[in-house]
């Protein structure tokens, strides 16, 4: 009975919860002390559940990638909280962050630049283990690396190759395998399928679904491809001009947007700037 209650509690608590997250850049004008503040996104709140996929869709410049970078702590947000397993990552020390860093990984769109071109695939896969001093002895690490290669459906003979000797799809598999070495719980996939051809997209999408089923992985799937978002995600959050405009099941969000007469996705920012014009404010 107690175990059931505990299980129900864990299921209710989101793996990752974002509360009122805002990212603002300040830019100093050339030859002037005046600073311009540019808001990449404002007051974002969302939850990602264990083993589930949340798709984050929106036009270019709506702040999706900036949010992804904040979630893996590559950017420091201006305000708000990132709660991982109930702990605010922004309030933790470097040492306390280590467990979260092991479990949250970012997969980039361009796999060619996301893998160090000077290292072999084996070295690339070993790197997270070395950084986190995990994986046991050298022999155990080798076994683990071969295991994740198998999971990512990569042949073992490619371990000695370098990233540029592989195709885009194969490199994206290596990037996914690199995350798997540390036993991740959440993958932030930033347009991870966008640079691939349709057939390879399908293969990688299937791989992601298989891995999710095997490891109960949670995905934050950032994309502007609504078909893929509907296929992979149980929930969709639509970003527009740095805010979450709609949230819900894929069918509900896309239907609501069509009914609002905005097409499937809100249009790009009219100013053509990367960061939407309405959120640009003068001074601090």
């Amino acid at each position: 009975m107690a175990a059931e209650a505990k299980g129900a509690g864990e299921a209710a608590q989101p793996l990752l919860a974002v509360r009122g997250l805002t990212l603002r850049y300040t830019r100093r004008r050339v030859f002037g002390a005046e600073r311009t503040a540019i808001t990449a996104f404002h007051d974002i709140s969302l939850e990602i559940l264990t083993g589930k996929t949340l798709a984050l869709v929106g036009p270019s410049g709506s702040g999706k990638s900036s949010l992804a970078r904040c979630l893996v702590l590559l950017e420091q947000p201006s305000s708000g909280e990132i709660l991982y397993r109930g702990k605010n990552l922004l309030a933790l020390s470097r040492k306390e962050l280590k467990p979260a860093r092991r479990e949250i990984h970012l997969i980039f769109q361009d796999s060619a630049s996301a893998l160090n071109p000077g290292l072999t695939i084996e070295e690339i896969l070993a790197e997270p283990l070395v950084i986190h001093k995990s994986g046991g002895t050298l022999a155990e690490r080798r076994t683990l690396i071969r295991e994740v290669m198998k999971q990512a459906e990569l042949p073992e003979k490619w371990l000695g190759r370098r990233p540029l000797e592989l195709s885009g799809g194969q490199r994206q598999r290596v990037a996914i395998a690199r995350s798997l070495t540390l036993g991740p719980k959440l993958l932030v996939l930033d347009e991870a399928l966008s640079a691939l051809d349709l057939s390879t997209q399908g293969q990688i999408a299937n791989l992601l679904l298989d891995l999710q089923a095997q490891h109960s992985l949670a995905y934050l799937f950032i994309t502007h491809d609504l078909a893929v978002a509907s296929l992979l995600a149980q929930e969709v959050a639509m970003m527009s001009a740095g805010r979450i405009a709609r949230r819900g099941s894929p069918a509900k969000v896309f239907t609501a947007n069509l009914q609002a007469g905005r097409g499937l996705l809100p249009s790009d920012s009219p100013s053509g700037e990367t960061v939407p014009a309405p959120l640009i404010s003068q001074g601090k």
Partner: protein
Amino acid sequence: MARVARRIVHGLLLLAGVSVFAFALLSAAPGNFFDELRLNPQVSPETVAALKIQYGMDRPLPVRYLRWVASVARGQFGYSLSYHCTVGSLLWLRARNTLLLTGFATLLAWMVALPWGVLEALHRGGWVDRMGGAVTAVLLAIPDVLLGLLLLLFAARTGWFPTGGMASVDAASAAFLGRLQDAALHLFLPVVALALGTIPILVRHVRSAMVGVLDSPFVEAARGHGIPKWRLIYRHALPAATNSLISQLGFSIGALLSMSLLMEVVLSWPGLGPLVLEAILARDVYVVIAAVMLSSVFLVIGNLVADLLLYWSDPRIRAVSP
């Protein structure tokens, strides 16, 4: 191996081209060594004519060039009209001194520029970067000659360092360690002067190479894993930035050599600099040509070494090269 041989052949062809140009340009330049002699009333026109014949300067340019090539093959590099000896014997000792100077200066310049540039790149836009940028800008703006003169003034005022030469008068009688210390003291000023002239350029190259790499997604992926900063630099960023830095190393050797010619004159270092200056003033053509050739040889060797280092360090170059 085939790659090395091909690069050496390219280098030799380049040197042959440089030698032809050097010969042609020096012949086209107004005046020659014998014009000075003609002005001397104690030397008769017949003697001047006899000397021209003796040194083969009355022959047409192609003949002189071929004779010079033959003397290069014998290691003589022609004959110095001022010093009355083969250029080869004159040049080797001076070249050794210049190499000693540029070798240490290159080493010092890279030892300072590498961490400096990396530090600036890591703190891009911060006060470390801005201060570093200001210092390199000031160093770039100061002419090399002025830099040499300022160091000379410093040595003269403090008396901490000798103001010229390669060894003290009594150095020969000193013990080994004493001679070593004496040589180090004499080397210090010229090495620092040369290095200070090169450091700002190198710092800017290192910084821009590192900034480019630090922005790449594979570095961000490593940062996302929580990689310690020192490992990020030596494992990922520096090796990836190496390509452009190695190419720069080849050029820096050639540039330092050219710069050292001037600095040797200012700081009285007995290298190629003072010899070349005297040779140019006296129209001692074969010495000038040999110095030009030696400069080119250093540049070619520097670039050859850089190419081989690139081939060794970058698997992508190995993958496309036969």
